């Protein structure tokens, strides 16, 4: 179990170094096991240094910088056992316009092998997508779908009462 954890941890760390560069476009990061010689007992320390800032513990980062760090790390973990699909539910909420664009550009690196479904309230994220589904509750308490024509293709939907 110890060896398996260390193998996966090493893989996550390698992935994180790559995803961080994709999501932040610059800056550095690291992942370390600290607090105990035994990997199963140690804590995972996350280091994130966006461009122009000093390497600090996560705590000193701003809300948006923390969120983007977490997204790149969660993505790094996802890539250990990638699925054909990846669903992102409103993770772009704390990001400013510049970081949302970095976020969508980073996803483009994976679209060849990964189908993305992104729940979002953000107009810039929507612009970066190929298809758009609108969900509404025209009738109280009952969800229904409104399809939206996008990139010249209509995504069909059927709602039968």
């Amino acid at each position, binding site marked *: 179990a110890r060896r*398996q*954890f260390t*193998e*996966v*941890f090493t893989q*996550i760390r390698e992935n994180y170094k790559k995803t961080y560069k994709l999501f932040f476009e610059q800056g550095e990061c690291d992942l370390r096991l600290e607090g105990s010689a035994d990997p199963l007992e140690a*804590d*995972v320390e*996350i280091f994130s240094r966006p461009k122009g800032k000093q390497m600090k513990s996560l*705590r000193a980062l701003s809300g948006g910088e923390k*969120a983007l*760090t*977490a*997204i790149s*790390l*969660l*993505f790094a*973990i*996802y890539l*250990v*056992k990638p*699925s*054909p*699909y*990846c669903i992102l*539910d*409103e*993770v772009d*909420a704390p990001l400013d316009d510049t970081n949302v664009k970095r976020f969508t550009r980073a*996803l483009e690196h994976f*679209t060849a092998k990964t*189908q*993305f*479904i*992104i*729940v979002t309230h953000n107009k810039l994220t*929507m612009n970066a*997508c*190929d*298809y*758009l*589904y*609108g*969900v*509404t*509750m025209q*009738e*109280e*308490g*009952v*969800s*229904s*779908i409104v399809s939206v024509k996008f990139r010249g*293709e209509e*995504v*069909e*939907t059927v*709602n*039968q*009462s």
Partner: protein
Amino acid sequence: MYISKLEILGFKSFATKTVLKFGSGVTAVIGPNGCGKSNVVDAIRWVLGEQKTHLLRSEQMVDVIFSGSKNRKPLNYAEVTLTIHNDDGMLGIAYSDVQVGRRLYRDGSSEYLLNEVPVRLKDIQNLFIDTGMNTNAYSVIEQRMVEEILNEDKSQRKMLFEEAA
């Protein structure tokens, strides 16, 4: 390999039969607060065999059945069907499309379906072995996980890493 269609009936706020078709590209799901977007995400998790009710924001599994609204009575069962397009042959078997279905009745009885044939969840999981399609804890990335990984209390973060291993 990608999800080409999702059919939802009686699952959470989807009281009426709803069909979503997906392409292999990037799809955005949008709408006001509370309209059902995360419920669509839950439906995908659920049909692929999710057993952890707390990941479906529910106390008991039967809570995912439409529990009624102002104008409608509660429904008796929830059913979700997912169609996967096997364009890269990763699913091995001879089909170009595979349909996975799950149904749950109020009395707790439930079934899984593979191309409309009742099977055990195990059969579906075996089909998906090595494709990454199984309930992969990280195929859904949401705000809750962002909070857990950033948590000052590092044990939560450690759990996320241990689950990946």
